């Protein structure tokens, strides 16, 4: 393998590869999950590196058609990293080990940032705009996620430039960032509860003939019912292993029953 000649990738190549990496989940399946998209993202650049040496291209591709499942933006980072290693002629076994060691932690990190932080915040902003009847809601949402989408370009470059240094970097910061994203996400969820979960009894639901039940709760702590409701659902999910579909059905059934008796 030592005598293989390699072409250099340009900055533009890495940018294009990063854009291409959007295909990651095309062809997603339960056997190898994102294997096809992950491999195809890099394939044109393997070809660029090895030129007409189809044998090497095939070897590099085969090395990357294994099972992989990670977060989309982090995949781009990993693609950049692998291309830099491939270009440097690193041992393919090593490359595969690095890939297999990193995709899990990277998934956690990426999910924390994109799914658990960016998504609820952008949704919250957009929903509040929607509720005011403004078309800014969807527009702002698309703009935010447009930037989310193209953030894969610097991530791809980062992976490429760091090369093997990437491994230490991830080890040092993954916990801190995941933790930080947790704080952010949890606080936003807390803030969403009063605005978006609409759990209240109608004026007409009274006890002792005159005392409206909702008034009692509002006197003690406004929005305590939505809060309690979410915490109760969380308890069911976490401790009773109830799944989302069961919850949704349950809520619909209970809602209809409460509606029938005029309680809600």
């Amino acid at each position, binding site marked *: 393998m030592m005598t293989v000649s390699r072409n250099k990738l340009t900055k533009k190549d890495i940018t294009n590869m990063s854009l291409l990496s959007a295909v990651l989940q095309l*062809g*997603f399946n339960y056997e*190898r999950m994102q*294997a*096809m998209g992950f*491999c195809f993202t890099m*394939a044109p650049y*393997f070809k660029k590196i090895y030129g007409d040496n*189809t*044998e090497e*291209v095939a070897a590099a*591709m*085969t090395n*990357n058609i294994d099972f992989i*499942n990670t977060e*989309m933006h982090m995949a781009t980072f990993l693609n950049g990293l692998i291309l830099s290693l491939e270009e440097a002629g690193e041992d393919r076994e090593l490359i595969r080990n690095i890939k297999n060691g990193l995709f899990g932690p990277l998934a956690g990190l990426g*999910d924390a940032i994109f*799914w658990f932080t960016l*998504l*609820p915040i952008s*949704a919250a*902003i957009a*929903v*509040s705009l*929607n*509720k*005011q009847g403004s*078309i800014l*809601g*969807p527009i702002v949402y*698309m703009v935010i*996620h*447009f930037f989310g*989408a193209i953030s894969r370009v610097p991530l791809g470059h980062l992976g490429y430039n760091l090369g093997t240094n990437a491994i230490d970097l991830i080890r040092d910061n993954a916990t*801190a960032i995941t*933790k*930080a*994203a*947790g*704080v*952010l996400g*949890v*606080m*936003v969820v*807390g*803030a*969403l509860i009063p605005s978006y*979960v609409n759990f209240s009894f109608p004026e007409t639901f009274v006890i002792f003939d005159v005392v409206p039940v909702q008034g009692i709760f509002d006197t003690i702590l406004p*929005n305590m019912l939505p809060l309690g409701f*979410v915490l109760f*659902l*969380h308890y069911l*999910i976490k401790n009773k292993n109830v799944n*989302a*579909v069961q919850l949704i059905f349950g*809520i619909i059934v209970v*809602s*209809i029953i409460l*509606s*029938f008796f005029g309680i809600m």
Partner: protein
Amino acid sequence: MEITLVQGLLLALVAFIGSLDQQMEVFLIFRPIIVCFFSGIVLGDVQLGLSSGAVAELAYLGLLTIGGTVPPNPLIAGIMTTVIAYTSGVSAEAALGLSLPFALLGQWIGMILSTLYSGLMKFADDICARGDVAALGRLIALAAFGKALVSAVVIFLSAYLIQEPITVLVSQFPEWLIHGFRVAGNLLPGVGLALLLKVMLKVDNVAYLFIGFIIATYVEMGNVLPIAIIAVCITFLSYINSKDRQAYDVGGVDDDGI
């Protein structure tokens, strides 16, 4: 109101494009807030698109695809919420409840396709062994196209072909039943939030849940952005603080000054 053939086809187009994005998770235009908006445009009722988008987005906020799991389909839920509200005249909240069967249908189809697609790996391996880049491209394009087409067909059937029976069914619902679905629609966002908490809530950060809740309850804010900003600030401060601590423990930060 009735959905015309052209509208039905356009909705299918929204579903097709949405499904491609849903597979790629790239621009997030498959999320209810966006597909409802476009569905609203197609149906000529933008306000309906906005309100159903708001309701459905929140309900499906925590129903994410983490780790490759397939949740009730938010793309289909979004479009069908708008469609049912439009054709049956019920509120967006009630329509959200009524759209659930379709979202589950979408989930099951998605799981079946991802199972079937496992068969493609055989071809992929061969292609890689040949080093045939273009062929790999064609394979995934085809796979993506297949999934998208299925979504489009599902939407065309659900939104256009069977609109009559759905409308008739809904029109026979008693008031308390419709109201019950509306109540459910108001509560469903709680599921999304609870699912988010499942992953994010730790002993470490549970305090922030309550802080966010209290602020939002007592300080009038148009949206959640200011709280997100405060949360970023807190996060950043504690990050700085822990870095400081580390540096200090290692030996002697704070040498500036004099």
